[in-house]
């Protein structure tokens, strides 16, 4: 069981446009993600979730179970299509062919950012999973590019990473972030 209050306190004073790397363990990653999504949507942000781990339908179910307003969520689902899952049509989802389709993901992020009015944030879940499917150098370029575009538009980014992510890749990404939250319950 994670300490939601402790995590919320960490998230509470993050200025708009900051990029936060949220490190946690594999045991806590789901709960941590749900706390972040709930906290941000309660604070009137619309979340753009880049999901490399769970399909759209599963995420929506989890969000509803946890009292998260799914009207304030847009999911870029990189999982369902490659695993032959059910591609349910909805106005808050875009399906990407695979986690390694970084150009499609990048285009989709830009498109969704343009669709959402008001405060928004990008939530990447998780770089550790994305790294399994992508060559590290290419992936770091992708993350650098996404982060820079978020900064130019003053959109907050929250990037989840498991503690065991490769040290060099972690360092490349960490030095681009404004804050590191190492969440341990």
């Amino acid at each position: 069981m994670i300490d939601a209050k402790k995590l919320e306190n960490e998230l509470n004073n993050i200025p708009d446009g900051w990029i936060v790397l949220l490190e946690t363990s594999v045991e806590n990653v789901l709960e941590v993600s749900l706390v972040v999504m709930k906290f941000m949507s309660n604070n009137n942000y619309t979340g753009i979730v880049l999901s490399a781990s769970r399909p759209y339908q599963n995420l929506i179910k989890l969000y509803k179970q946890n009292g998260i307003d799914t009207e304030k969520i847009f999911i870029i689902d990189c999982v369902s299509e490659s695993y032959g899952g059910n591609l349910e049509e909805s106005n808050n989802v875009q399906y990407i062919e695979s986690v390694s389709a970084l150009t499609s993901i990048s285009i989709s992020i830009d498109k969704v950012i343009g669709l959402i009015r008001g405060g928004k944030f990008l939530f990447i879940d998780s770089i550790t999973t994305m790294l399994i499917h992508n060559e590290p150098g290419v992936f770091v370029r992708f993350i650098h590019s996404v982060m820079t575009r978020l900064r130019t538009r003053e959109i907050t980014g929250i990037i989840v990473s498991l503690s065991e992510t490769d040290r060099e890749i972690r360092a490349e990404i960490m030095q681009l972030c404004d804050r590191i939250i190492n969440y341990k319950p």
Partner: protein
Amino acid sequence: MVNVKKLLRDIVEKYPSSAVVMMELPTESYFDVNIATVKFLIDREFEGIYISFHRPFKNILSLFEQHRIDTNKLFFIDTATALSKGTGEENPRCIYISKSVDIDELIGAIYITLPKLKGRGRFIFIDSITTIAIYKPLSESMRFSEFLIRIVRKNEVENVIFNVARDLVQKKFIRDIALRVDKVISVAE
């Protein structure tokens, strides 16, 4: 950030005319140390060129202003915007590198900017030498670092500061650069 100030003060005292410095920074506080370093130099009446691979000019400018750094003493070469395939707003204090991120263009931008520096000491600050190596062949990253070291030796600028995250200092090309600088300083957590 007392540690950074003390380390930099020692460098300025030990190398009063010129120095090439590599700073190994804790990954977790990378940008905080960048800010502290630039603030230290500007507060000592240096003027400099900030070459950014990490962040777009607009973002750096706003963060420096929040930290009360006199940005009138700085010129920026923004490579980050090009690396993300974006475009930046025009500003007389910033040169945006084009999307091909050519090393010769970067060198040209430095030569255009150097005559504009009027402080009692001039510096070039590179926010991350490892980031360029993600985009360009190692030979090009090396050529760029060699150019920077050479212009200090030829007294075209007094100080060059390369920043490297501590977890990346073992990369071979970083070790090569480390052999050629005047001082490698390690900033504690």
